């Protein structure tokens, strides 16, 4: 089998794992100002404090994996989205340290709560806009980015950015339905409905925009025979979206969260269909950007040995902190 294709799926898996796992962390950050200071905020943060670091590691695997398996794509995409990547990194700095800092000095807590929200929002927006910048196309000459440093800023990228913010907020709210109870759960439910609706609308808008953006994208989705293969994606998306809204209204545990993840999975599958087989649309296919066989095969051994273990001990860490968040937090 072609290792380049295998690696494209591994990177896609890492990005998907990052988006859903850190997605709900960032979503909680985005929603943080709507929680009452004190018990509600503490419980919301305690629900992710033991796992956020592991969740964020998938971002390093996505970036590091891209560097290793598709170095040319890494070397083109990052300079093309330079201000977005820097903004995301700085946002993640504020978000990450807020987990520790907000408990260190009661006088600073309000400030670090704002930093937690600001950092989460900026990181989510920048990630979504980076995705948009990639989908709308990047100018490549030879082996380097050839555009200007503002190419990433368009109405389309703003739309993908906002879509990502809404989607993360949805994941965060459904996670909190699972981890909280009582009044706080009711609050999370309200947020999940609102952000769920926003996510669905924005997903639809991005999909339509994609078709208008690029004739190849449109052909991928609208011409026969492709349409028969890809039609299940939007149909399933609609079914999952409706079931999710229903579950948010009724379920007390994890169902809305899992359906939220399913929604993300379908959304990413749709993007995969749109972009395939390019690493940078219209400029570099995954084979153009791929590292040689020796690099790919060496890393594949590592992935085969470690990824099952990583998934196992990550699952164990989640299991240790299962159930509703206790009042006093974890310690």
């Amino acid at each position: 089998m072609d290792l380049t294709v295998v690696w494209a799926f591994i990177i896609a898996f890492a990005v998907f794992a990052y988006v859903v796992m850190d997605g709900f962390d960032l979503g909680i950050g985005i929603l943080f100002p709507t929680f009452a200071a004190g018990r509600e905020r503490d419980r919301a943060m305690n629900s992710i404090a033991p796992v956020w670091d592991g969740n964020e590691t998938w971002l390093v695997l996505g970036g590091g994996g891209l560097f290793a398996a598709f170095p040319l794509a890494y070397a083109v995409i990052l300079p093309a989205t330079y201000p977005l990547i820097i903004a995301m990194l700085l946002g993640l700095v504020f978000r990450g340290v807020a987990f520790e800092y907000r408990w260190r000095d009661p006088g600073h807590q309000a400030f670090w709560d704002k930093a937690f929200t600001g950092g989460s929002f900026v990181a989510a927006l920048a990630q979504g806009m980076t995705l948009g910048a990639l989908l709308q196309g990047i100018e490549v000459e030879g082996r380097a980015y050839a555009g200007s440093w503002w190419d990433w800023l368009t109405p389309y990228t703003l739309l993908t950015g906002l879509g990502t913010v809404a989607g993360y907020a949805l994941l965060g709210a459904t996670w909190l339905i699972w981890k909280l109870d009582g009044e706080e759960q009711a609050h999370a439910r309200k947020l999940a409905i609102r952000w769920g609706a926003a996510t669905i609308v924005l997903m639809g808008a991005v999909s339509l925009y994609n078709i208008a953006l690029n004739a190849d994208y449109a052909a991928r989705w609208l011409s026969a025979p492709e349409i028969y293969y890809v039609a299940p994606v939007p149909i399933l998306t609609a079914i999952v979206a409706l079931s999710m809204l229903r579950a948010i209204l009724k379920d007390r545990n994890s169902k809305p969260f899992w359906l939220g993840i399913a929604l993300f999975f379908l959304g990413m599958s749709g993007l995969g269909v749109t972009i395939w087989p390019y690493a940078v649309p219209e400029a570099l296919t995954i084979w153009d950007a791929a590292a040689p066989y020796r690099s790919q095969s060496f890393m594949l051994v590592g992935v085969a040995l470690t990824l099952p273990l990583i998934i196992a001990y990550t699952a164990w860490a989640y299991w240790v902190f299962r159930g509703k968040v206790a009042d006093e937090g974890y310690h």
Partner: protein
Amino acid sequence: MFENLDALLLARIQFAFTVSFHFFFPAFSIGLASYLAVLEGLWLKTGKSVYLDLFKYWLKIFAIAFAMGVVSGIVMSYQFGTNWSVFSDKAGPVIGPLMAYEVLTAFFLEAGFLGVMLFGMNKVGKKLHFAATLMVALGTFVSAFWILSVNSWMQTPTGFEIGANGQFLPGPSWWDIVFNPSFPYRLVHTVMAAYLTTAFVVGAVGAWHLLKDKANPHARKMFSMAMWMAAIVTPAQIFAGDMHGLNTLEHQPAKVMAMEGHYQSHPNGAPLILFGIPDSEAKTVRYAIEIPKASSLILKHDLNAPLAGLDTIPDDEEPPVGMVFWSFRIMVGIGFAMLGIGLWSLWGRVRGRLYDMPWLHRAAVLMGPSGFAAVLAGWITTEVGRQPYVIYGLLRTADAASPLDAPAVAASLLAFILVYFTVFGIGVWYILKLMGHAPHAGEYGVKRGDTGPIRTAGITPGPTQNPGGEDTLPTHAPDEKEPV
């Protein structure tokens, strides 16, 4: 502010700034993770509560340092692409897999078990908790292994081929790439540096509290443990550093010439320049204080061995001498000061007065940050010393940068400077505040706020605040001022 600088220089300043800041945190957390594992292991073995108290005391500090290390580390993993895209494209097939292995075998391990280590003691039991601590400590070491292999390959590249498209491609053996010639020396020297950095921080905190109360058993224990490290590891580190230097002489002679300040070749034994002011215009070290032939003795183990100087290297392949010369002397000077503290503590121990020597304690407090200074100086020595190359002898730094406009890099550099000094400055201040509290019996673990109705005033700790079954210890008087 930076309008006169070009994009390349800005990118170099940004990389130097962000990597230097980042390096402080792992330099501390590699050693501290191992120290925490030792403390928890000793507690499980002996059952003495002093070890558990110290574990909890340092765990709070570890949590902050680790968070700072994580967020500043992610910046590094993306900066290769954002600012050094030509390097990333060319070297990606060789070093990319090593960095992927770092993520798979180290970052996930640390991050996956960190939550249990910080918050899980009363959820998983003592033994599993200890296992989690060990995994975090192992992860910090494995991370050092891979990233230093990458750095070493860039210093002493082996095992590669050059592709038709100009990329560095892996040769038939990954072993030759991972275990490139400078890697074993760099790994040992850097990991011991991390251990010493932590030991001197722990020693300084112990000494600080001994100066206030020399009977404090917790301060005594941590001071004693740190001084054993200083006495045993410092000589080993000096030896390892010497070996690393000889390895550098073999593979990167120009770096050693700059370290030594040898502008000229010395056919009949080169002098050891202790101090002086390198003048690269005149190609001489002014006001040099030197020991004749001693450099040849150290580097070649022969008083009269010839040593080549920078006059044998074309000017455009020389590293900047001043920075390398000075940073090397700062590192070595700190190393010998550390040795002095170690020997002083041994002498105190022999006389049975280790906890009764305020001048030793004052010196140990003063030496608290010395490990960070030494690590940074050593890093500057090795990184500036391999200039003008990013992949030694093969790819110049000037040819490796991204095609970015100078204003973009200037803006990001300014943002990094502002954010890092603010955010990490505050983090260091929180750590210092925690260190300012005397370690005591019934030490708290990492706490997550008093949100329950029982403890709204934050005065009476609930039973869950003392994980590990220490709730019943009668010695514990809750300290209301302890930050939660």
